[in-house]
């Protein structure tokens, strides 16, 4: 398995890094022969003017990621808005409101719609503007472009055209896809960092064609010209096919001459290049796919509710139409005062069905208040503000990298509160992807004093368990006698490492041992072996040195951080790797000092060198299992001791590699070399296999030197965070590309695994050729393993037993197939933690999809690198780790945080809040619109189903847009059931989200029922009170406007008091909005009553003259308000008293200040509040306690057994 990894690496490096080192095969010497579709691009180098006309006119280098431009904005954005069913309905209603069918005046239909759509569009415009600004920043970057006669000028990127010759300087980005012509190096190589493209931090080498090497100063471009014929724009980053016609010769081009836009020039002073692909034709832009737009489950459920409301709307419209038809047909002819039929045929007793149809449309518009028009826009506003809170949370700001958390999409906020499974990448996410050289074993002697994080964590934990023991009230004396020894041991470990000041002073080097440092190794007995050891460290790698000008110290750009740490270690030991050329590596050895030209023949994990004395060595490093297989008989001198050390290191969570060497004599080497060269220059698909075979021949009979142990450092606070998340009831899966041993180590380090957990490893057996159908056999075997394991879990009686599933990528390929994946998923769900190792990016995505679709629960994927992109996009929520590595993961993610530990706050605090806020908000929205909309319907029954509304149009216009919208937004933005500290202290409060306690159908229908009740109360109380009697001492009778206004006042009071009851957190903002809304209603009545417009609808001075002086108006308002809210009040108070939800209890404890007064109870509650997690620190401690108790119990029973016969 480990061998496979090395091979994979070789193949990769062979592709990117060493393309230049590979002699060109004869196949590639010929120019490519192609024409026809797909290969039509022609570039006239240095003649950009040729590209101004068709057909050679290619797109400009201007990029734009905006959705709209000034012209398309209106039509496009409007189209987007009206794709929502509700908005489309309101648009139709608004159009129809211009006809006499409409029950309302046109303005009262159009104004709210315009407001709502306008607001949404303003938001879109703002976001797009931000994108535009970002684009312009890129577009206006300056590039150095050849003008004429060898003069280079600054030009913004967007002005760049195909065929331009540009000069790019060190640490600058390439403005477009370029053909490399020459560089500051004589041999025309340059180093490129492609972090923005694929997330890989290592440097890649590009190499110019030999013929263009002479073009290395500005003058030489005076009359440079050439023609490039190449492929059309395509998204493949690693391929390029083309020909370069220069000085009547045709040269083939391959990817190693192409510099891609958005990658960075490193370690090279400058390069010259010709623009081939600009703007959207460039590979990086071709690659930019739109991340799939995700919608939260709550929103999907909300759509269903809207459909329910639409059904209700159609239903009551039909009822009302039938009523209308009956009335029109049988009664209207008798109602002489109506003088039917009318001209338009809206009320024609002769044609009741036609009139009925018109009325159906009227009714559909009339009852439109059932559909909350402002729901979408309010939710959008709320989510943007919530995202703002997430972005501004100071507790999620990483001081070290200076990155705050970032909600990249705001439409998944509430989904954060419902996560069930977290799928996490390991490297860079749980760990820093920073390797510290910690220990080594040379010639069978271990060096290195420092303890690894895992050791420290284990020690700390054990100490904590002790601590807990004493709190749990176990007899102290007993504990003492049992544990004195280990306790002392532990204490020493802890005290010696106290203070947490063990940050290595040098990045990547955590080694501490005076025997090796400062040249002391020279005095050690095995100095010659040590020399070899250090040489292997400093030579056997693929890294590129970089000199820091200020300090004169080399830093290294390595393909993997392991290598980086080796080089740093070697540097610290005195072997400073300082230069790499095509065929030699220069290492400066400090003690004693000499330069060492090394002839390198084959660069991979093995290197063959010729040292200063002319001796040829093969140096090799690799996974211990492989190296040990290849040792010669006399090379196993230190094998036993080294194996022991390797095991120790492995237990301590370190990554290990074994180092070995072999001496070669000249003849043997040249014989082998011949064969190797032959293999290299061979043509065809079997070249790799041949190379492999030849190398294999050489890497034999090695002599073991020693082993290294590198610590893959856990990120800050990861174990604690995992513990909290586990307590919150979240399942955590780790998907890693690492090998199984490493993954298990890390699993232990972050408490995903613990002693006593039953590990279920599912692996692929080695199939022999004997079996007829190897694939089938393997599958059967795996299926067997899965069934056995499932059976085992099923039969397990102990409720505390925990299982861990560990599976590798090869096995996953089988288990992810359709016929087996459900068994696998079932097994995985039964396990407390799942670790998948050696998985490919695609498998990560597949596993994510399996969990998402198989369990139907919400999954969150978190990762940092390009290899996590698939997973991040597949999961319901993708979280990217921003900061260190490339931006790919972040670009694909929905939320970006700087460190894994912030996930806790993101989920447990923000997720919890957002979920509750949005859920309550939507419920309330439906409540208020049902409460209001139905009163209009009831009135129809009293108005002959004629479509007359009892309210003045303006009231209705304001209802959704002004009078009830702000309180609900404040609910959605500011509501907190408990404050953030309590959320973190009681992580299992989070479970309210995944269980969907606040947005299940029970609750939704409860709210709808409440709306129904409110509508009934408001309507009938008002109708009965204002029925036929005088409502004032002056004997006046209430007319329709007065009744409508009184009714509307009741609704405003009722729904606003309802929201006040719903809230549990009042800042001044909520108070202001709620009471302000009510006050605004009266203010509006006052102002509206004075407007001449009000004369038209009998609402003139409605408040001052008609209603306010009538005591019955005020008493009705009070009665309606209380009567509407009474059931809800009773419900919540009885729920709180008899069946309190968890947050109720916590709120009350806080309210009574129990947490301060009664620490004991507080602790007890806190303990209860933990989800019964099977992973994490706490679970470990619990398991330990159970174990001890069991032993104690046994002891007692034995003692009793003994004592019984005595008595």
């Amino acid at each position, binding site marked *: 398995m480990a061998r496979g990894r090395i091979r994979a690496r070789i193949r990769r490096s062979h592709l990117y890094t060493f393309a230049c080192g590979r002699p060109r095969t004869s196949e590639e010497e010929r120019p490519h022969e192609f024409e026809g579709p797909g290969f039509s691009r022609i570039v006239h180098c240095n003649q950009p003017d040729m590209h101004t006309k068709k057909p050679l006119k290619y797109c400009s280098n201007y990029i734009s990621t905006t959705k709209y431009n000034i012209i398309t904005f209106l039509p496009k954005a409007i189209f987007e808005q009206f794709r929502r069913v509700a908005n489309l309905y309101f648009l139709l209603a608004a159009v129809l409101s211009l006809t006499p069918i409409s029950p309302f005046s046109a303005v009262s239909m159009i104004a709210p719609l315009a407001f709502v759509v306008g607001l949404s569009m303003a938001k879109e415009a703002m976001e797009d503007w931000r994108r535009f600004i970002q684009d312009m920043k890129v577009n206006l970057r300056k590039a150095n472009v050849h003008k004429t006669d060898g003069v280079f000028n600054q030009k913004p990127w967007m002005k760049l055209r195909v065929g331009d010759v540009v000069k790019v300087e060190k640490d600058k980005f390439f403005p477009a896809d370029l053909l490399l012509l020459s560089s500051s190096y004589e041999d025309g190589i340059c180093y490129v960092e492609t972090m923005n493209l694929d997330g890989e931090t290592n440097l890649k080498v590009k190499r110019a064609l030999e013929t263009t090497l002479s073009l290395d100063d500005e003058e030489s471009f005076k009359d440079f010209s050439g023609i490039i014929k190449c492929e059309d724009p395509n998204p493949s980053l690693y391929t390029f096919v083309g020909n370069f016609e220069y000085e009547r010769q045709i040269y083939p081009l391959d990817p190693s001459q192409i510099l891609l836009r958005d990658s960075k020039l490193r370690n090279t002073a400058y390069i010259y290049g010709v623009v081939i692909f600009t703007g959207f034709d460039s590979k990086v832009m071709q690659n930019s796919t739109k991340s799939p737009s995700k919608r939260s489950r709550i929103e999907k459920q909300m759509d269903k509710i809207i459909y329910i409301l639409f059904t209700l709307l159609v239903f009551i419209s039909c009822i009302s139409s039938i009523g209308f038809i009956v009335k029109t047909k049988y009664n209207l002819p008798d109602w002489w005062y109506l003088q039917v039929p009318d001209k338009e045929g809206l009320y024609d007793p002769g044609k009741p069905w036609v009139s009925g149809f018109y009325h159906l449309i009227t009714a559909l518009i009339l009852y439109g208040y059932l559909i909350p028009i402002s729901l979408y826009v309010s939710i959008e506003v709320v989510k943007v503000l919530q995202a703002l809170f997430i972005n501004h949370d100071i507790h999620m700001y990483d001081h070290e990298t200076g990155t705050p958390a970032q909600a990249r999409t705001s439409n998944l906020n509430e989904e954060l509160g419902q996560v069930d499974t977290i799928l996490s990448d390991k490297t860079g996410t749980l760990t820093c992807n920073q390797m510290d050289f910690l220990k080594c074993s040379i010639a069978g002697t271990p060096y290195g004093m420092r303890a690894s994080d895992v050791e420290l964590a284990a020690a700390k934990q054990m100490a904590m368990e002790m601590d807990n023991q004493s709190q749990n009230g176990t007899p102290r004396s007993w504990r003492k006698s049992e544990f004195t020894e280990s306790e002392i041991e532990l204490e020493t470990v802890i005290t010696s490492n106290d203070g947490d000041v063990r940050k290595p002073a040098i990045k990547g080097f955590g080694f501490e041992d005076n025997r090796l440092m400062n040249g002391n190794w020279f005095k050690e007995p095995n100095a010659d072996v040590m020399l070899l050891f250090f040489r292997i460290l400093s030579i056997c790698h693929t890294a590129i040195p970089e000199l820091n000008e200020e300090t004169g110290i080399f830093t290294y750009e390595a393909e993997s951080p392991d290598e980086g740490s080796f080089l740093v270690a070697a540097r610290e030991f005195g072997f400073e790797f300082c230069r790499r050329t095509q065929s030699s590596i220069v290492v400066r050895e400090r003690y004693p000092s000499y330069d060492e030209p090394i002839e390198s023949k084959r660069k991979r994990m093995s290197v063959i060198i010729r040292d200063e004395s002319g001796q040829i060595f093969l140096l090799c490093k690799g996974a211990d299992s492989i190296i040990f297989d290849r040792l010669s008989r006399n090379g196993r001198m230190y094998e036993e001791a080294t194996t022991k050390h390797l095991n120790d290191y492995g237990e301590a969570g370190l990554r290990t590699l074994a180092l070995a060497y072999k001496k070669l004599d000249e003849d043997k080497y040249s014989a082998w070399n011949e064969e190797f060269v032959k293999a290299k220059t061979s043509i065809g698909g079997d070249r790799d296999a041949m190379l492999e075979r030849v190398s294999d021949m050489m890497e034999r009979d090695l002599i073991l030197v020693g082993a290294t142990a590198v610590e893959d450092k856990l990120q800050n606070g990861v174990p604690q965070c995992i513990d909290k998340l586990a307590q919150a009831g979240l399942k955590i899966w780790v998907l890693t590309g690492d090998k199984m041993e490493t993954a298990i180590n890390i699993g232990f380090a972050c408490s995903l695994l613990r002693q006593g957990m039953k590990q279920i490893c599912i692996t692929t057996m080695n199939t022999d050729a004997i079996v007829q159908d190897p694939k089938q056999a393997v599958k059967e075997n795996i299926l067997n393993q899965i069934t056995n394991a499932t059976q085992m879990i099923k039969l397990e009686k102990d409720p505390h037993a925990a299982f861990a599933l560990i599976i590798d990528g090869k096995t996953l390929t089988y288990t992810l197939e359709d016929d087996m994946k459900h068994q696998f998923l079932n097994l995985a769900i039964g396990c407390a933690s799942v670790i998948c190792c050696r998985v490919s990016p695609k498998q990560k995505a597949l596993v994510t999809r399996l969990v998402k679709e198989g369990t139907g629960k919400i999954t969150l994927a978190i990762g940092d690198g390009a290899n996590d992109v698939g997973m991040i996009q597949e999961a319901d929520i993708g979280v990217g780790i921003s900061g260190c590595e490339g931006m790919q993961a972040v670009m694909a993610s929905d939320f970006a945080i700087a460190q894994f530990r912030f996930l806790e706050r993101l989920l447990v605090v923000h997720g919890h809040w957002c979920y509750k806020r949005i859920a309550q908000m939507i419920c309330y929205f439906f409540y208020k619109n049902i409460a209001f909309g139905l009163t209009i319907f009831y009135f129809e029954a009293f108005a002959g189903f004629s479509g007359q509304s009892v309210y003045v149009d303006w009231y209705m216009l304001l209802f959704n847009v002004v009078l009830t919208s702000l309180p609900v937004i404040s609910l959605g933005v500011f509501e907190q059931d408990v404050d*953030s500290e309590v959320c973190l202290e009681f992580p299992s409060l989070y479970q309210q989200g995944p269980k969907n306690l606040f947005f299940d159908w029970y609750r939704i229908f409860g709210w709808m029922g409440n709306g129904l009740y409110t509508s009934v109360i408001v309507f009938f109380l008002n109708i009965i009170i204002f029925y036929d009697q005088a409502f004032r001492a002056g004997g006046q009778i209430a007319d329709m406007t007065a009744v409508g206004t009184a009714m509307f006042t009741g609704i405003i009071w009722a729904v606003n008091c309802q929201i006040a009851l719903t809230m549990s957190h009042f800042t001044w903002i909520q108070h202001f909005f709620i009471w302000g809304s009510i006050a605004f209603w009266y203010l509006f009545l006052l102002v509206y009553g004075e407007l001449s417009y009000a004369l038209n609808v009998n609402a003139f001075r409605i408040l001052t003259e008609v209603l306010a002086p009538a005591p019955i108006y005020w008493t009705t308002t009070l009665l309606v308000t209380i009567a509407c809210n009474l059931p809800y009040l009773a419900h919540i108070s009885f729920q709180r008293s008899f069946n309190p939800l968890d947050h109720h209890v916590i709120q009350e404890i806080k309210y009574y200040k129990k947490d301060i007064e009664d620490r004991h109870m507080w602790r007890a509650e806190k303990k209860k509040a933990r989800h019964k997690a099977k992973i994490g620190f706490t679970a470990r401690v619990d398991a330990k306690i159970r174990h001890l108790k069991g032993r104690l119990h046994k002891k007692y029973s034995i003692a009793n057994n003994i004592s019984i016969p005595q008595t």
Partner: protein
Amino acid sequence: MNSSTPSSSAGGPGSAESTGPRRNSKRPKYSRFTQQELPACKPILTPKWVISTFLLVSVVFIPIGVVSLFASRDVVEIVDRYENECIPINSRNDKVGFIQSSQDKTCNRTLTVPKHMKRPIYVYYQLDNFYQNHRRYVKSRSDQQLRSPGSERDTDPCSPEDTTSDGKPIVPCGLIAWSLFNDTYDFARNNQPLGVNKRGISWKSDRDRKFGKNVFPKNFQNGTLKGGASLDPLKPLSEQEDLIVWMRTAALPTFRKLYGKIEVDLRAGDVINVTLQNRYNTYSFNGKKKLVLSTTSWLGGKNDFVGIAYLTVGGLCFFLAMATWRSHLFVMEPESRGSLKLAYESAVHVDIAQALTPLEWIQACSPSLFLKYLCINLVHRLLEHFETRDMHL
């Protein structure tokens, strides 16, 4: 030692704090708003609060209910339904024909005052099954026209009562005005006529602002169809108070409208003779007509419902307060109320059910669990019963 790695040598998060502002321009600025730490009151419905709220509501509501009920009881109301009696017996087969004929429609009614009625006594007419709130009807008016003489021709919404057949605008136009109620009442006590004051029965703002002082009825009721009452073309609209009252459309198909005020007290036992002109056609749609004499209180007319509703809600709140208080006696502390159950979904076992008393069950569980308990208990009782019977046998 190595300046190329400043980030890792910065030390713990504590020291990073001090170096923060230097390079961390992206650091979110602290404000209580963005950190969601604004001072807030977090009211909690503890039993104490619940009880006090309910009590408060009942304490406020019950007195209001009592007072309203008394006020409503003070109102004296005489209702006389006359649409049937005022048709001569021989015409009762064809009421519509009678009402549309030009016969004399005078009708005498006698009312007896049951209780002392203090002035002012309001006279109403009440119509039934008359849809003043029908959309066609409500829209059929022109407020511009009512307000200013210049807008005479603003008769768009008034169709079909917008113009006369020769195209002259009708003022006031529309169905509402056209169908103006035209029964009249004359009152006499002991053969002494009782004056009915018809001034001040409409809203002042209507008279002042809505109905023009210089707008006079024109071509009214001159159309082919005769609707209701005619208007005196010499009186401006602002003084046509019957019209003004009528134009305020009622919310419901049963409605009263103010006809006038009698400004003398009526003693109990007084006999009042009403001479009425029964002209208005409610017979087409079987509408009732009533004459109402009523005094008012501060609450308005006779309206027991307000008082009853207040008493009901108040009583309910009192009951709820008591109920909460009773259960509150048993469950005071939050921790005794089941505390956190979060992950502990309690399974219901028969033995647990047996161990608790019903009251404890109500307190500890949701109603559904309580029902479950009842079932379990019932089964248990039955079993016991059978067992004892078996023993007897």
